């Protein structure tokens, strides 16, 4: 079973990398860009057959290590 | 996998003659793995086939030299049972393709070359050449290369203390990224690559092997019958964290006597490392490829042997010491695998899945490597440009301001502030001066180091330019007070199959050799990078010299900044006003023409010896070598380097019968600007040494006043000097 985890900065936390990407996009002529936020994408392979149990485990991983919940949110998707 | 090209050698960039030699050596046709091994071992990169004939002419010996060219890096005695180990190496093409990873892996590779020999790396330097600032790729390349060098060096924790950068349109399609590492070892703990002895375990350590960097260019043009795989990535990705672990693990194992031989897996990976060790040790090696730790499944013998995955080492251990070594690598969480043994066969044998995948006699593989005497034509001589042929600017102060604010001479702070130049706690003289000075940890001794080359001089006159590159590096090391010991060189040129390019290489090597001999500074290591050209347009010939010197007491080092008002300023060496090929000429006329300034090696040495002697005696308060932009720029640099808030400038008074602008901006060689509170001591010492030393003025508060120029505040010079590069990079 595989978990797909998206980690993003909480709204309100300054994202200098996102800002730089936005500036670069604008510089390239993409003038419809209003905001860019960047984050991380992590895949975890699990030896687990129960989706809920997997979600609980991955959620624990996010709380303990994968995300810094002071500034980051995480979003978990469990796929077979 | 079978080969379908009509002439199989076409697959791998070998010539028909070279292929015939392979048939002769093997007595049969090679399989694809064997052909790959011959191809990389006989590549320009590994065999130096175009340059070897000329490299052999370089002076490589001296009482201080423990190991000259031919090992992973050069080794030079610095006394007290210690040695300095250093080398420079190019990573030009990969850095153009992917600047961050290309530069990062360049740093990683040269670090491994140095710690493979038992040294702890203590400093990194680099020599960078980029295209014209207005070329669309330049900004991206500068940003990526600088971030990559910093990303690797900062993480592994070796300070990046010096380097140089030039911009020129000839590098638009071929940037140069030359990285140098300096390390320190005990003279009784230096490790070599000769796998002497049979039945010894061959051990693989470090990262796992993937398909990184396999035979990039040749793979792309090859056609394989049953190979429908996706195009393989050829860009290697650096992992400085793993390299830090590898460094610590290797040094820990080296503290024991378990290692017989060690070789890093750099270009051509497992192939060149195993062949090198077998060849030098005069033994055979059998490798069981099934035991090679790997990151990807389904790798062929060819791919395993030619992978350029980073952060890997090959070692030959004393028999029975495997477990001890394994424990150390396990502690550092690195792969460790016994993948073969040495034997008396003299052959490289590769086994995979029980099948023999290659069987090549090592000695002919190495000895029969091609060596070419490529045709060459000497560079046509350039006329000498007289000073009065170059117009004087209306105001020489304005000329100075535009020079110090130009891409060529502006501050490199934007670059070196992205490098951790202080980690390890021994950086005595930081970047921005003539040479960096790094204390030998736990002692009062220091190592001074600098990289230099003036490509426009080399283009105009390769011999003189080769001499000048050595002289300037030697001068920079001298200017902090150190005694230059030896050099490493990185010869970057265009296509050697063109006689005029080959002529540049031949001339530059001649000049380097002459200067190294005259200055007692032999070449102990180096690297050659050829074929740096795009659409038939070659780069400027760029033979970069890295010089290392030793200083017995770092507390006596002198820096370039003016220290206080009221010091007397001297120029050591003769000023003749040589404006040909100068930056002033380019600033005024838009181009450089004419012969470069000649290097008088005898006075170069005499002048430098005097300066070193004055520094050792504590006579000088500041010292700076005179190079690009001449005296005016040297004086401006000394003023700008003074403490912000208490700016020190200078008032210069000279009577000279040469045009003032040529006195200020001429690039005569062998000169230093020095300041002193004891002018008589300088006069006396210079007289004794028979060296020209002219008092040209005094240091003053806050303003630089030059003949023929409006007085300029140090703050104005500094502001101009500092803004070009950050502004340029921000404009992207």
């Amino acid at each position, binding site marked *: 079973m595989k978990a797909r985890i998206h980690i993003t900065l909480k709204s309100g936390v300054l994202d200098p990398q996102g800002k730089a990407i936005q500036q670069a996009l604008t510089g390239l002529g993409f003038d419809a860009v209003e905001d860019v936020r960047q984050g991380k994408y992590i895949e975890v392979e699990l030896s687990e057959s129960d989706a809920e149990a997997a979600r609980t485990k991955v959620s624990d991983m996010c709380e303990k290590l994968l995300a*810094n919940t002071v500034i980051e949110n995480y979003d978990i998707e469990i796929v077979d | 996998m079978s080969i379908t090209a009509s002439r199989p050698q076409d697959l791998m960039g070998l010539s028909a003659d070279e292929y015939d030699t392979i048939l002769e050596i093997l007595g049969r046709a090679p399989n694809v793995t064997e052909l790959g091994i011959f191809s990389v071992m006989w590549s320009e990169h590994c065999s130096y086939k175009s340059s070897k004939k000329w490299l052999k002419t370089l002076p490589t010996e001296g009482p201080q030299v423990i190991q000259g060219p031919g090992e992973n890096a050069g080794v030079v005695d610095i006394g007290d049972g210690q040695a300095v180990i250093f080398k420079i190496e190019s990573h030009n093409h990969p850095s153009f393709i992917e600047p961050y990873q290309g530069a990062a892996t360049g740093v990683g590779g040269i670090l491994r070359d140095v710690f493979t020999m038992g040294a702890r790396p203590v400093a990194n330097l680099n020599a960078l050449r980029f295209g014209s600032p207005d070329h669309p790729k330049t900004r991206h390349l500068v940003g990526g290369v600088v971030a990559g060098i910093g990303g690797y060096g900062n993480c592994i*924790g070796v300070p990046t203390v010096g380097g140089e950068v030039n911009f020129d349109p000839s590098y638009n399609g071929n940037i140069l990224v030359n990285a140098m590492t300096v390390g320190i070892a005990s003279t009784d703990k230096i490790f070599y690559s000769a796998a002497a002895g049979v039945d010894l375990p061959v051990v693989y350590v470090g990262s796992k092997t993937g398909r990184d960097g396999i035979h990039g260019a040749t793979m792309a043009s090859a056609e394989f019958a049953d190979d429908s795989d996706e195009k393989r990535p050829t860009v290697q990705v650096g992992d*400085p964290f793993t390299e*830090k672990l590898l460094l610590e693990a290797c040094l820990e194992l080296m503290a024991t006597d378990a290692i017989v031989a060690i070789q890093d897996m750099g270009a051509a990976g497992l192939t060149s490392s195993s062949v090198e060790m077998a060849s030098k040790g005069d033994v055979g090696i059998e490798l069981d490829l099934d035991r090679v730790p790997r990151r990807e499944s389904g790798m062929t013998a060819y791919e395993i042997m030619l992978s350029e995955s980073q952060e890997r080492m090959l070692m030959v251990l004393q028999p029975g010491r495997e477990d001890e070594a394994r424990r150390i690598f396990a502690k550092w969480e690195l792969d460790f695998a016994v993948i073969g043994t040495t034997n008396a066969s003299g052959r490289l044998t590769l086994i995979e899945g029980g099948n023999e995948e290659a069987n090549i006699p090592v000695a002919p593989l190495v000895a029969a490597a091609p060596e070419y005497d490529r045709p060459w034509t000497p560079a046509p001589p350039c006329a000498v440009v007289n000073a009065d042929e170059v117009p004087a600017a209306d105001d020489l102060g304005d000329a100075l301001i535009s020079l110090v604010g130009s891409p060529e001479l502006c501050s490199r702070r934007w670059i070196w502030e992205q490098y951790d130049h202080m*980690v390890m*706690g*021994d950086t005595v003289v930081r970047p921005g001066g003539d040479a960096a000075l790094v204390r030998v940890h736990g002692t009062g001794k220091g190592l001074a180091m600098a990289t230099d080359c003036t490509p426009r001089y080399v283009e105009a006159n390769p011999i003189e330019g080769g001499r000048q590159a050595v002289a300037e590096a030697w001068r920079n090391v001298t200017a902090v007070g150190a005694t230059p010991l030896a050099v490493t060189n990185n010869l970057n040129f265009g296509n050697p199959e063109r006689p005029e390019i080959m002529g540049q290489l031949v001339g530059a090597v001649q000049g380097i050799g002459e200067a190294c001999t005259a200055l007692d500074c032999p070449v102990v290591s180096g690297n050659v990078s050829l074929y740096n050209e795009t659409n038939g347009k070659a780069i400027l010939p760029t033979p970069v010299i890295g010089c290392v010197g030793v200083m017995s007491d770092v*507390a006596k080092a002198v820096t370039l900044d003016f220290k206080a008002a009221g010091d007397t300023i001297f120029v050591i060496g003769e000023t003749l006003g040589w404006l040909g090929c100068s930056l002033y000429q380019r600033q005024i006329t838009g181009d450089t023409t004419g012969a470069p300034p000649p290097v008088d090696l005898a006075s170069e040495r005499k002048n430098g010896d005097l300066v070193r002697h004055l520094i050792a005696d504590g006579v000088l308060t500041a010292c700076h070598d005179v190079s690009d932009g001449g005296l005016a720029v040297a004086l401006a640099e000394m003023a700008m380097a003074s403490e912000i808030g208490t700016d020190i400038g200078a008032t210069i008074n000279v009577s000279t019968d040469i045009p003032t602008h040529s006195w200020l901006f001429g690039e005569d060689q062998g000169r230093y600007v020095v300041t002193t509170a004891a002018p008589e001591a300088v006069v006396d010492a210079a007289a004794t040494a028979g060296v020209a030393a002219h008092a040209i003025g005094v240091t003053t508060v806050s303003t630089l006043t030059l003949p023929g120029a409006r007085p300029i505040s140090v703050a104005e010079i500094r502001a101009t000097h500092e803004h070009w590069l950050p502004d340029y990079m921000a404009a992207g």
Partner: protein
Amino acid sequence: MPAAVIVFPGSNCDRDVAVALEAATGRPPAMVWHQESSLPQCDLIVVPGGFSYGDYLRSGAMAAHSPILRTVIDRAHAGTPVLGICNGFQILAEARLLPGVLMRNASLKFVCRDVDLRVERTDTIFTSGYATGQVLRVPIAHHDGNYFTDAETLQRLEDGGQIAFRYCDSDGNVTADANPNGSIANIAGILNAQGNVLGMMPHPERLAEALLGGTDGAAMFGALAEAIAA
């Protein structure tokens, strides 16, 4: 043994801080490998700079979960002084021994240079060698030194006197120009509420010797040596 330095895979300022500690205390500190679960007898714990675990994932995140950190946290709660420098600060923040996080520098670039720091507190064992408002020159060398915390926590830090150092100009003025990395309120170093844990991005161990360009960092190690000897 008066001081212990924690060494992670990827630490690279461990030797530098050990040199400064030995100069101040007269004896070398214990170097403690990350896989240890216990600390030797010590009265000061230093978490040094570097790139623990390559700073992969987030600077300091993985080191904050290493076995030795559990012991460090326990000892910190029990009152043992803990000093985190650069990556050490990032680790202590990730371990929640200190509030807030160190984000990517506002410039997005690694920056290595001397900065001026204003001393905000002198009544701590770390800073008792300085005068209030004194301006120190100490180098920074980091990619992720942009201190951030929410408004409420910031207020608590301000009110509780938990800000130890701020980036300032050479006259001690806390200005935007003097801020090298975008840190909120120019924060360069903070204390925990009890005052026994200090995290700072600048490297006092790098300017603790005149030959290397300055000695402003030495007073911190001098003060610590005195405190733990007493």
